[in-house]
């Protein structure tokens, strides 16, 4: 009986697995011509015929929920959404394309150096020509105008629709009052030895923090900080946030505000503030967009891009993720990190392609100096 049962399983489960296997569409759908593309309705009709858009995006549930809501606006187009971080996603795409697999339409993610590599490899198509909706094309609606929405040198491949001040450090003011730590320069004070936690700067937000310190205060400051302050490196945002909230490490570098704001949401009484900065970085975080060359569903992708940049969608997305939209007609979701349009020129756009060498140097320093 048991043997028979096992044999049945051996036969049936692979069959069931095969039957549920979804084969990715491989043949690129025909592009609509330029004149037709100008007609939004025609574009939507072409997108409906494609019936699907394949999007890679942040793994965070909030992002997934918001981006998949495209299906509510365009019920005939299914969103195939795969959450994946940059580290895993880009090597996968590069390898797929080497073997002639063009499976992705769009990537929603930050303009990491790998995005620029993807462009150099010919994997990215320009986005700008396919922004069609008047409310999307309206220069006055975007913080800094349309040019500043693009992070690549050509200003057409790597778009960022989020804009926030990326503070280098936050401090638990219940533990360290303002009188004791007034600026980032004070981080190298021996008093804070063993009291600083840094998100791992070998990738992600921690790297952005070191990049900014390097850009603003120079290499010797960074060396001093990383070698003399016994900085603890955290690999997990929640753990870093909890250490900051509990005061175990009252100074946190490279932390995302949302990580500790969720403690506040749940009723934890905390007083966490950014350490005042002379010059601040402005970032787009994971709120970036890239469009793939030879996308299998190009029309659906174009509809998605335009949909994503509308006021209504940006409002919902911004409220859900608490990352401020670049759109000026979207309510501010997080006051503390909202950039001031009047100070536009004073911010350092930390994720633009021109900053890649600084970022690489910051990574090299972190690699050399941290345990």
């Amino acid at each position, binding site marked *: 009986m048991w043997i028979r049962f096992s044999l049945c399983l051996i036969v049936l489960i692979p069959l069931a697995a095969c039957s*549920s296997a979804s084969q990715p569409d491989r043949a690129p759908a025909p592009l609509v011509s330029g004149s037709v593309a100008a007609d939004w309705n025609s574009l939507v009709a072409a997108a409906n015929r494609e019936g699907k858009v394949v999007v890679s995006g942040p793994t965070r549930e909030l992002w997934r929920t918001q981006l998949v809501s495209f299906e509510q606006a365009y019920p005939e187009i299914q969103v195939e959404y795969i959450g994946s971080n940059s580290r*895993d996603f880009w090597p996968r795409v590069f390898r797929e394309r080497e073997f002639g*697999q063009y499976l992705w339409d769009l990537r929603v993610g930050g303009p990491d150096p790998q995005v620029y590599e993807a462009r150099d490899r010919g994997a990215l198509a320009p986005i700008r020509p396919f922004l069609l909706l008047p409310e999307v094309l309206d220069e006055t609606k975007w913080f800094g105008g349309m040019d500043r929405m693009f992070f690549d040198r050509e200003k057409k491949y790597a778009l960022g629709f989020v804009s926030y001040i990326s503070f280098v450090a936050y401090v638990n003011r219940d533990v360290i009052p303002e009188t004791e730590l007034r600026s980032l320069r004070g981080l190298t004070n021996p008093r804070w030895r063993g009291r600083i936690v840094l998100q791992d700067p070998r*990738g992600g937000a921690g790297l952005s923090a070191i990049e900014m310190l390097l850009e603003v205060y120079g290499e010797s400051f960074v060396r001093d900080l990383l070698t003399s302050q016994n900085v*603890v490196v955290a690999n997990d*945002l929640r753990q870093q946030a909890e250490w900051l909230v*509990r005061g175990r490490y009252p100074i946190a570098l490279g932390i995302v505000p949302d990580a500790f704001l969720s403690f506040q949401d749940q009723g934890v009484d905390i007083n966490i503030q950014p350490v005042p900065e002379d010059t601040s970085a402005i970032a787009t975080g994971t709120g970036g967009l890239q469009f793939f060359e030879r996308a299998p569903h190009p029309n659906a992708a174009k509809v998605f891009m335009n949909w994503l940049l509308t006021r209504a969608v940006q409002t919902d997305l911004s409220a859900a993720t608490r990352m401020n939209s670049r759109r000026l007609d979207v309510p501010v979701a997080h006051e503390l990190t909202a950039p001031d349009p009047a100070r536009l020129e004073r911010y350092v756009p930390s994720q633009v392609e021109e900053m890649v060498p600084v970022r690489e140097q910051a*990574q090299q320093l972190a690699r050399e100096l941290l345990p």
Partner: protein
Amino acid sequence: METVKRGFAFPISHRPDSQTLWCTAVLGGVGFILLYPLFLLLWNSFQVAQPDREVAFGLANWVTALTEPGMVAAILNTAWLTLVLQLISFPVAILIVWLLARTDLPGKDWIDFLFWIAFFAPSLPITLGWILLLDPDFGLLNQSLKAVFSLEQGPFNVYSFWGIVWVHLATRSVVVKVILLTPFLRNLDSSFEEASRVSGVGPLRTIARVVVPLLLPAVLVVLLMSVIHLLESFEIEQVLGPPSQFYVYSTMIYRLLQFEPPEYGAATALAVMILAVMTPLILLQQRVSRSRRYTTVTGQFHGGRFPLGVWKWPAFAAILGTGLFFTVLPLGFLGLATFMRLFGFFNLPDPWTMDHWQRVMGDPIFLRSLLNTILLAGGTVVLAMASFPLIAYIAVRTRFRGRHILDFLSWLPITIPGLILGLGFLWLFLGTPVLRPLYGSIVVLILAAGISSMTLGVQLVKTNLLQLGQELEEASWVAGGSWLYTVRRVILPMLTPVLVTVGLVAFISAARNIAGIALLVTNQNRPLAMLQLDYMVDGRYEAAAVVGIIVLLLTTGVALLARLFGLRIGIRT
């Protein structure tokens, strides 16, 4: 104990040509699916991108890997941690296994099951639970002890070497050994112990002088796996290590993969070094397995129980307490995590909530992820139970020339860390035209998960086969039983306990596998483990713990089912 060289090998078929053909096909298939991705990974580790992105060949990745700051300290830390953990966990595990498998301990079958439940529990919430108790500043146990004994500082620090050792022991180290060694001890002929007892030797000396030597192949397999696992696993060290700057070899590999862009070449170099270091030990294990005869199950098998006498109830209390320590505590942490607004924050105005359960259950992709997990884990079990015994059988019972190579190949998957193996699988499925159509389907995940659990499965069955006397098969053969009949009526019933173990381990490792499949999942085939990862990245430990409990319940249900079959079939003491 007999120390007779093995002279007889049961043919897989009456026609040697057919046997060679089948065995060669298996060797070819296994070799291709394991060596091809490994070759690609190795090849890649010698590729160096030039500033103009032209690819050249060189040793830069290997130099980078070996000269990575902190590498020497990490290697020393790993060696010390490994040594300490094995020295503590092996004696404890062997004692528990002996009590469960060889004695008249009351209720041992269900106590045994407690260890399985502990094995199914996800390690991260348990690690967080230990932080909740043993954090030097806010740990509940430390605070209590400070209050009771008026101490200035709590006596425990979970963020220390001994804290890491403790959490390893309380999560995996002992439990895994208990689970893996139990089937082997069940197959031990009690006449060996009875002879020892009649000679006036006490229980502990009997374990040391009779049981352990007979279990040597199994002990070596489990030891090797434990060491390799420690070389690769980094979750506990990653969470507890930073405050004391305690890094291990696996955290160095993980660190290289975190770089922007990830340094797969250098990480592969470190992974290959694990293989290089482990190869002599694997060969030694193979040599030990071949050099002596470890048959304990023969036609005269006597599965008696060692009477504990007056120690029966104290032993029962001790072993039940240990089992509960390994299960109630982790399940308590898990439960707490799912029902608390913020795990560990008891001082909130309203600390309890059902929100996390509602969030997970209401997630639009939850049901599909659950179904995918069932398909993935079920498919992996089928693959494991169909192929691992075959590979083990060829390695142990045939005269096929390539049997030792096949045996060695089966060790490869465990020596390569999951994230790197996942990249190898990606290349395998994309680079092989015959496999490419499967890319994006759940079959790919099943193959990847199956390969990930191959080492454990094959080695468990292989070691179990070493215990089985060949006269049982010979008797069937002489009586006119065909090979298939012999397998069905003689070998399979005797292997059932270990096959159940292999199936369950394959199930749970497939259900929890993230690293090996992260590069292969699509929207259609993504399992619960990926949903759990989403919550983790989001910092929602509580929702991730809900998914952990669902996987735990799923696996426990399967384990109960398997146990019903396993209890009825096979040799039980």
